[in-house]
């Protein structure tokens, strides 16, 4: 079947087998930030934004992406770089394997304006790994979300 969707801002046409997952399609299109870490829909590594919402591309049918707006890490280079600098500042980055999924979900979270500790932890509970320790990342995420604002605690 043929599908038509926006991938990182570009109109994209693709001929796919009907049971292709969005994950496989995105890899085929060269979006190598999108990875499959667990094959059981638990790890969040394959997270991409579909119509602004974070989704597990491993269990999203490419056929359903028809007409949708799909964004991967490759499409948010600027934001990712900025967020990456906050992670690095807290020493919260190690091998980087899981970070694309985490970053995409942080960007989705930012849109939903979730700012408190518990809310952040719960929102990111579906992103496993984050090997350098969740505390460092939580600090980085909070700093990132409150950037440009006056922060009393600092």
């Amino acid at each position, binding site marked *: *079947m043929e599908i038509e969707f926006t991938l990182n801002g570009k109109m994209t046409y693709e001929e796919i087998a*009907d*049971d292709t*997952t969005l994950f496989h399609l995105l890899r085929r299109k060269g979006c190598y930030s999108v990875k499959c870490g667990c*094959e*059981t*829909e*638990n790890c*969040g590594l394959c*997270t991409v934004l579909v119509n602004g*919402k*974070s*989704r*597990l591309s*491993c*269990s*999203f*049918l490419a*056929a*359903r992406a028809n007409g949708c707006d799909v964004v991967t890490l490759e499409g948010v280079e600027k934001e990712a770089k900025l967020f990456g600098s906050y992670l690095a500042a807290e020493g919260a980055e190690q091998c980087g394997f899981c970070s694309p999924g985490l970053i995409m*979900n942080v960007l*989705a*979270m930012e849109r939903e304006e979730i700012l408190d500790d518990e809310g952040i932890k*719960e*929102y*990111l*509970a*579906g*992103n496993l790994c984050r090997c350098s320790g969740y505390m460092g990342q939580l600090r980085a995420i909070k700093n990132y979300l409150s950037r440009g604002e006056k922060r009393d605690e600092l």
Partner: protein
Amino acid sequence: MIRFKNYVKAENLEEAFALNQKKSSVIGGGMMWLKVQSRVKMTLVDLSGLGLDGIEEKEDEFSIGAMCTLRQLETHEGLNACFNGVFKECTRSIVGVQFRNGATVGGSVFGRFGFSDIITCLLALDTYVELYKGGLVPLEEFCRMKSNRDILVRIHIKKDGRRAVYASQRMSKTDFPVIACCAAQKAGKFYVSVGARPAKAELVVLEENQDCLKEELAKRASERFTYGTNMRGSGAYRKNLAEIYIKRLLEALEQEER
């Protein structure tokens, strides 16, 4: 992983129903559990073009489309205001936001999964399942029915003034529940459902008895369920957990009333 040859986005329920009569067809919900099954099908029928992805608040009920996601249940203000946040509580521990943005209410209910937090929660409320051919069926009856090739269209939850609270125990935050409990209260009655026993949720209704301690009521309620053993816990352990959680829920309902 599931494989199939044809993807069909149904244009109406009749088409979806007709396609689904073949054993080689399957209805695709959120594609969460379906995807991880090793099955080979001819046709996957998609209901996502039928406008069944919303939550509609009416005067006497909430009407929830089969394709509504668990995340929508979690964040819907009207629904959570009416049932004091019970839908946030019963969805928040299900894997992660990305998963709940995909998993559907229809898939959760139609699957009649033992581990279902959603069915456990809905059972304690006055919930009906709307089937395309089978019409409106109380959820409790639907849970006992054998799976057939009908199509789940919507879920209806009556606004009957029931107040509900929910609790589950998990080995880790986003794991399947070891036990899932929901309790609701209305007009002198307690509606208690327990799921992940590990069998699918069931409901018991208790008369509220002022002279009876919540502890005693919880014990009685927990004794009316059967419990089994799996890798997450033994039947005896689950029974203990159920009794404790039911007691806490009944106390929470009482406190809220004050």
